């Protein structure tokens, strides 16, 4: 019977159809459970390219209500080197803010399961803008479009429904004129605590664009044997105190230790190369306290 069916399928050329049908049947099994996805991670606009777009995708099995709006928020740091991004919904007076110049179309959409939606961005900056980079955050807010609240089991019962709302904030950078990316390391320190080397760097952007790069740290012992390393993406808009914690293995190493710090704008894989503004490289060696 099986052989007969196989032969029939082969003869009718229906194998391809069966394979495709099988994929559709199996698709829900391997589908990634997720909310609305937003790409790319950074949007670059310029005086020669004043329109852009982001793409939204709903890979979940429920419709999502999506709102797109703009905010302002740069990475800032505290005295411990922790980095925060505080979004400011209200109007900002920051001279580098592009908030108010940019518009999105559409701003609200119901995204059916499995569907994509392109959101167009148009920027209208003021005339005679000084050379440099101007910033805003694109905030994509999504939630389950179904609003039904579960009814209590009993007539006199109480039930709750907490709607989970996801906001994804991506950076928008508008560039004009001659662009310079330059970073200065103003102070640095490193100390060892419980087999963790804590590196603290004070960085200042001296260019007219944000410095985007990678911070590499290597911990070496007296015999130049590497006992730990770390790497993080870095974005310095103005001033930033950045901390990196590097776990080390404490066995058979020879103190004193030192940390080699290297900051470079090369190697970022999350930004298309044409949009990277090459900056300076910083190499610095620290002794462990």
């Amino acid at each position, binding site marked *: 019977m099986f052989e007969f069916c196989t032969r029939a399928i*082969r003869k009718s050329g229906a194998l391809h159809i069966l*394979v495709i049908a099988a*994929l559709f049947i199996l698709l829900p099994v*391997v589908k*990634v*459970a*997720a*909310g609305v*996805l*937003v*790409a*790319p*991670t*950074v949007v670059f606009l310029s005086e020669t390219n004043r329109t852009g*777009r*982001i793409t939204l*995708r709903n890979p*979940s099995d429920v419709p999502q209500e999506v709102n797109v709006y703009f905010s302002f*928020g740069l*990475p800032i740091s*505290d005295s411990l080197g*922790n*980095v*925060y*991004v505080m979004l400011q919904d209200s109007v900002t007076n920051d001279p580098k803010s592009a908030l108010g110049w940019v518009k999105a179309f559409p701003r609200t959409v119901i995204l059916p399961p499995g569907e*994509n939606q*392109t959101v167009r961005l148009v920027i209208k900056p003021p005339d005679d803008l000084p050379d440099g980079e101007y910033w805003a955050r694109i905030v994509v807010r999504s939630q389950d479009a179904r609003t039904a*609240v*579960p*009814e*209590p089991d009993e*007539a006199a*019962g*109480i*039930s*709750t*429904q*907490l*709607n*989970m*709302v*996801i*906001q*994804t*904030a*991506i*950076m928008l950078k508008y560039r004009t004129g001659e662009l310079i990316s330059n970073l200065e390391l103003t102070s640095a320190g490193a100390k060892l605590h419980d087999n963790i080397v804590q590196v603290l760097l004070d960085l200042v952007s001296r260019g007219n664009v944000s410095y*985007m790069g990678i911070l590499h740290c290597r911990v070496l012992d007296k015999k130049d044997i590497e006992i730990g390393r770390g*790497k*993080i*993406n*870095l*974005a310095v808009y103005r001033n930033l105190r950045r*901390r990196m*914690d590097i776990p080390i293995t404490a066995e058979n190493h020879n103190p004193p230790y030192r940390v080699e710090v290297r900051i470079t704008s090369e190697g970022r*894989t*999350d*930004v*298309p*190369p044409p949009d990277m503004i090459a900056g300076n490289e910083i190499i610095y060696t620290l002794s462990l306290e």
Partner: protein
Amino acid sequence: MARRMRFTKHRRPIFSSFLFKLAIVAAVLWLISIPVSALDFTDGAASGTVLTIIAATSTQDLAFGSIFQGVPKLIGYNNDAASSIFTITGEASAGINLQLILPEYVSLSGGSDRMTIIFSSTDAAVDTTTATPSTVSASDGWINQNPYNLPASAVIGSAGTTRIYLGGKIVPSIDQTPGAYSGDIVLSVSYNGT
């Protein structure tokens, strides 16, 4: 014609063999099982660069279940079945900024009554491994965290995923109006290195 027949005979067993078809199906299934977040799905943006987007999702809602007048109900972040679970995927080890905006109360749809909801300073955990709410420990990330001030040094885990577990407490009054109450929990995410 004879040569053509021989050629056809030679090819058919390869391309129509069961194993070959199975391999095609396996390859396609493997391709579609790649996390969507690892792909740049921007159509037309032909840069050739693979961009790792950041994606957040609510994989489990905070569920208080049946609530009774005057009886507060607490759900710990370590409750596997009822705590809220947010999953964030992105570039492994990248620094991320996480902010929760939490309600102070939930309300009836008409706004005729509302009920207090409390999030204490230890109601959240951030897990950069593949633990569960009940098994997450300090070595997996951050436990007993203040949900209003999540760790600033949070990163995407080495496997490309980080989870937030959130608990809370609902406080119905003695004369709480029966009905279905709702409110919003907002999670804001962004990379802090872009």
